[in-house]
């Protein structure tokens, strides 16, 4: 503790243990920032300046809001720990690339102040600040959050895939190509029936190898940071390798989604169950969520058993929302919902105390 006084010049007095594993809170946070960086850079390349501006504004507002709040509340200013930067990046990663800057700024302020600082700052928040910020924006300005997608040039992966499927009328391209792959999956079959397109044609387009390949690489529509599964996996593996996160949450989360989706599509007699499962694993924010948001230490369980329960819960909710929910994507809501169960999970997955019988 603070009683490091120096009785003999230069000698430190402190309690055992006297050595430390080395990784500090700051180094963890900045490693996460580093792991997110490739995906951020790619999104700027893919979506252009607005994506960069959104990220910069989001990070800047998060840091400023944290500094301002700490200052007003006369608390030590904690912006150097990097957690506000992560919140800013993750929030920007979760908005569409053409979203207005003012909106992201409000979301960032909400995330840091309401979801984090009101609870006492880092370590005490119940909900992931970035996801709370996103949910706030989603409920406040749903139009911007669901329509501000980047418009690619005439030849996109989706439209090419669509042109491979014979017999799609002209307007069908619009519907399939404008939004994200997940919204195309959710609304496409319903909207296209008017144009005489069978749902099967939509599925054939979306679950084609080209689409799945570009979902993996990332040259496809979506929120700023979620498109390139590859770069996110690289970042995620870096975190795993550096032991910033453990495998429990990402694996149980993605595993649950894979199993449930495969089961659902197989049991409903779907022809492309494998491809559909792959599509769900790579599309939307699943990789981003599983590696970077569900693993947020403050808002996930502390025991490994608890982490697995948490991941499975996230996976189930994601599948439920994607398959039956009102929104095309369920990753952020499912993590947010599971955040609220963490105290209960922690309580019921407490490890067995050495030398005691089962509690």
């Amino acid at each position, binding site marked *: 503790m603070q009683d490091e006084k120096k009785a003999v010049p230069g000698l430190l007095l402190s309690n055992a243990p006297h050595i430390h594993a080395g990784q500090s809170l700051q180094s963890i946070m900045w490693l996460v920032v580093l792991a997110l960086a490739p995906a951020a850079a790619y999104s700027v390349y893919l979506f252009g300046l607005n994506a960069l501006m959104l990220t910069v504004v989001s990070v800047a507002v998060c840091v400023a809001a944290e500094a301002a709040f700490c200052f007003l509340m006369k608390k030590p200013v904690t912006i150097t720990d990097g957690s506000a930067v992560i919140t800013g990046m993750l929030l920007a990663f979760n908005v569409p690339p053409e979203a207005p800057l003012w909106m992201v700024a409000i979301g960032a302020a909400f995330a840091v102040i309401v979801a984090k600082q*009101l*609870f*006492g*700052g880092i370590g005490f928040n119940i909900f992931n600040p970035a996801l709370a910020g996103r*949910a706030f924006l989603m409920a406040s300005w749903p139009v911007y959050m669901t329509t501000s997608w980047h418009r690619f040039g005439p030849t996109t992966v989706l439209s090419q895939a669509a042109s491979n499927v014979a017999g799609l009328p002209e307007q069908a391209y619009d519907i399939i190509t404008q939004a994200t792959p997940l919204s195309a999956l959710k609304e496409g079959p319903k909207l296209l029936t008017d144009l005489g397109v069978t749902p099967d044609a939509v599925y054939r387009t979306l679950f084609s190898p080209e689409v799945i390949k570009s979902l993996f690489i990332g040259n496809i529509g979506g929120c700023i940071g979620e498109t390139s599964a590859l770069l996110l996996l690289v970042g995620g593996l870096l975190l795993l390798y550096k032991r910033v996160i453990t495998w429990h949450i990402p694996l149980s989360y993605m595993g649950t989604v894979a199993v449930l989706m495969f089961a659902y599509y197989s049991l409903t007699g779907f022809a492309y169950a494998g491809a559909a499962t792959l599509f769900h694993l790579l599309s939307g924010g699943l990789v981003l969520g599983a590696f970077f948001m569900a693993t947020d230490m403050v808002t996930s369980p502390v025991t490994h058993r608890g982490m697995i329960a948490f991941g499975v819960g996230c996976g189930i*909710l994601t599948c439920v*929302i994607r398959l039956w*929910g009102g929104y095309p994507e369920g990753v952020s809501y499912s993590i947010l919902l599971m955040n609220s169960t*963490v105290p209960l999970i922690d*309580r019921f997955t407490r490890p067995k105390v050495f030398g005691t019988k089962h509690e």
Partner: protein
Amino acid sequence: MEIQTLFVILISTIFINNYVLSQMLGLCPFLGVSRKLDSALGMGLAVIFVMVMASFFTFPIYKYILVPYDITYLRTIAFILVIAGLVQFVEMVVENVSPVLYHSLGIFLPLITTNCAVLGVAVLNTESGFLSGDLGLLEAVVQGLGAGLGFTLALLLMAGIRERLEIADIPENLKGLPITFIVAGLMAMAFLGFSGMKV
């Protein structure tokens, strides 16, 4: 078909139209009994029981007495007296079966009478709740069950969170009720994820 409708009602009342987080019913006990997990569980079970019973008794009263005699305007008073009687009964049972639980629920057991979620579910049953089309007795009871489960779910989650917030560095003036409302707001925001769900 029948089973499926019941399932829809259940899911709808627990998640999509959660009585507390989306309909803002039953907030007084939600705030009052969510400090400790154990009492939250007890309260939740009591509410589930009362809601199911209330649905079971009020629905036939409405359908076979109030409607045929064209005195539906007496709905509020009739329901509230039935519920008050039920709560009295539950109170007696709990007192005899588990004095510990009775002690920990304290003043909140009689307050189930004024838990607006209970009267709410009884009234919504007569207005066909969140479904189109009229409800039958079974549907009404399932709606009562779902409402109770939804209430209990929210209550348990809140209790877990509040136990953790006991030791959080919350700004002094925000402690207690205000931060609980913030949590409720964030939870309600998370529950918006269920909105528009088709079961």
